[in-house]
């Protein structure tokens, strides 16, 4: 074990002496986290169907009709769910938002103070899509009204109901009540004379087809995250990718400059040499993660939901990428080849895993492929511990996948490692 630690300390010392390498391992990820954290505040765009969970708490003909519209919406992938399930799945990042059609939706008055209302809870990491969702909801609420007014019987009933609510509204002045009630009366007369199927047009005055009550998803767990809570795990991931690439190359460097031969001639085993490398890589990964997150805490108020869970996530991510580092180290015979191949593999992993571009920007098939990227699971594990409020059971899936990938890669790398070229 002492020999393994000696190798690890030597590798850390080599990393510290390499100023450019040190910068890219420790400071570059920090810049990435800050840059994208700033960039993604209220920014974004949409190219795919947004997965939303819909809760029909009203369960009236009107609410069912509205939910039906959402299900048929081309820009939405609306799935029915209970409130608890919807909240939980959004929290775990399985959907962009939940939409709760609130009680009283069917009786809502589009001309009064009590319009049909829904509650919208958006995943904090996907705030960029909130505007799109609100627009879509307003669109389908308006369509519902448009349909309402093409049916004279329904519209007459609705207008009559609205007129009565206006006349009884104590918040309106008498003059306003009279004007709006008179207008609704006139409109009702026109509608009664209109042939069936003809649009009644849009009423004037106060008109609110849908009231959207935004619910902060994160209020259900401690501390409202900022965009930095989203970008700092990504920054950590970048740092870890940098470590994996750097240490993958360092193993090739040992081989090309002959020090590996010297290590092999020493009275230590092959396992100790690889373990030393792995330990140095792991320590660097943990060190940079802690540094980045501490910086995020001090400067940007990034506060993990659970430190033990974060530690669990970082250990799983670290072990996974140590294994990947081991595999990368056998892919190239020269430092240039190892560096090129390593970064190419890591960049693809990062791209597929949402490290470069949010997953929702990608086509569905690529999103499916992202399940194979450890970057996705790494970010999910860290987010789960930082602000998604994962339970230990929920942490199990990403952590187990990370450990499995790490183990397979380490075993494959160790097996393929060639001692003498």
């Amino acid at each position, binding site marked *: 074990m*002492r*020999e393994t630690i*000696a*190798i690890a300390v*030597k590798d850390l*010392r*080599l990393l510290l*002496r*390499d100023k450019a390498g040190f910068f890219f391992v420790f400071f570059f990820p920090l810049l990435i986290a800050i840059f994208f954290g700033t960039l993604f505040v209220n920014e974004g765009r949409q190219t795919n169907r947004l997965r939303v969970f819909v809760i029909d708490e009203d369960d009236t003909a009107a609410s069912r009709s509205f939910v039906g519209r959402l299900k048929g919406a081309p820009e939405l992938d609306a799935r029915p769910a209970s409130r608890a399930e919807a909240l939980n799945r959004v929290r775990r990042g399985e959907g962009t938002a939940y939409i709760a059609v609130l009680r009283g939706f069917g009786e809502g008055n589009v001309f009064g103070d009590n319009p049909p209302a829904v509650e919208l809870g958006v995943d904090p990491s996907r705030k960029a899509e909130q505007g799109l969702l609100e627009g879509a909801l307003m669109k389908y609420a308006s369509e519902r009204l448009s349909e309402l007014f093409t049916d004279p019987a329904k519209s007459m009933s609705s207008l009559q109901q609205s007129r009565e609510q206006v006349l009884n509204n104590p918040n309106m002045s008498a003059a306003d009540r009279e004007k709006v009630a008179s207008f609704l009366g006139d409109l009702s007369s026109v509608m009664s004379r209109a042939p069936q199927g003809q649009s009644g047009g849009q009423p004037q005055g106060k008109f609110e087809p849908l009231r959207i009550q935004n619910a902060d998803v994160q209020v259900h767990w401690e501390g409202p995250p900022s965009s930095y809570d989203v970008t700092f795990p990504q920054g950590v991931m970048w740092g870890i990718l940098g470590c994996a690439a750097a240490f993958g190359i360092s193993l090739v460097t040992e081989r090309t*400059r*002959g*020090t590996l*031969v*010297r*290590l*092999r*001639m*020493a*009275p*230590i*085993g092959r396992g100790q040499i690889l373990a030393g490398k792995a330990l140095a890589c792991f320590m660097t990964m943990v060190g940079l993660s802690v540094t980045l997150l501490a910086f995020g805490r001090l400067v940007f108020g990034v506060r993990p939901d659970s430190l033990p869970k974060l530690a669990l996530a970082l250990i799983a991510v670290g072990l996974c990428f140590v294994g990947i580092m081991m595999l990368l180290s056998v892919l190239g015979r020269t430092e240039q080849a190892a560096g090129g191949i390593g970064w190419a593999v890591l960049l693809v992993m990062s791209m597929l895993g949402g490290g470069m571009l949010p997953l929702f920007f990608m086509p569905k098939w690529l999103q499916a492929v992202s399940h194979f990227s450890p970057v996705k699971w790494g970010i999910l594990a860290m987010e789960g511990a930082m602000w998604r409020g994962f339970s230990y059971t929920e942490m199990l899936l990403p952590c187990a996948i990370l450990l499995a990938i790490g183990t397979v890669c380490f075993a494959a790398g160790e097996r393929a490692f060639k001692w*003498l070229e």
Partner: protein
Amino acid sequence: MSCAVLSCVVSFKIMLRISNLHKTFGDIRAVDGLTLEIKRGEVFGLLGPNGAGKTTTVNIAVGLLPADSGTVEIVGHGSPADRAVRRVIGVAPQVLSLYDELTAEENVAFFGRIAGMRGALLREQVKSTLQFVDLYDRRGDAVSTYSGGMKRRLNLAIAMVHDPELLFLDEPTVGVDPQSRNAIFEKVLALRERGRTVVYTTHYMEEAQRLCDRVGIIDHGRLLALDTIDGLLRTHGGQKVLVAQSLQGEVRVPTDDPLVDLNRLQAESRLLSFRLEGPDLESVFLKLTGRLLRD
């Protein structure tokens, strides 16, 4: 003295025993039935041209490469394939194997730790080793700032930091200036004085002649001859050559009795100068292989 005791005493005098060693790389026969014994406390030269199989032999002898067949034994310890046995071996590879970003002290200390040394013993050993190779004053400088000769000496220091009984120095003077080469020679001779066994591979006959107690001449993986320098010269060196300069030009006469031949030449024509050339390892190699060492 009984046979068993005699055998034990003889064995104790042997440090390294290589028996019928074979190693091939594809179609290339790198080591071909090599058998030799190296005595404790001697500087043994493994002399041969580039590609003769010297480095392969060393790599097998230190446990880095497995042999196709044959055995290597560090007498009293066992096979170098055994990790524990490698504690008694030190190797200075032909290719400089150093961490340029680290200081000399950090390099030596690291390999000392790898060899299992700790604490005060390690510190003392690092200090004495760096002093031995005259790098103690520069111990805090990064190796990247060192000259080629200094790096060679550091390469040697790393090989001996754990005070091994048996040292393999594989072409330790490649690419160094004459001054550094002389410094390395002095260190090798000092090691012999300390009672260390040194296996010194080289293709420079001058080095072998200056440093080695015995020399094994190797070519195409086969041991062609093994003896002391004098023994090799006597057996394989051929005759001395009398070189005489007369008004007619230079005359070279192989001779067993230089005085008789010199008188004969003097009688034939007036000599302006003469000298006697003795056989050297180059001529030994020429006689054994039909070609020069540097061919």
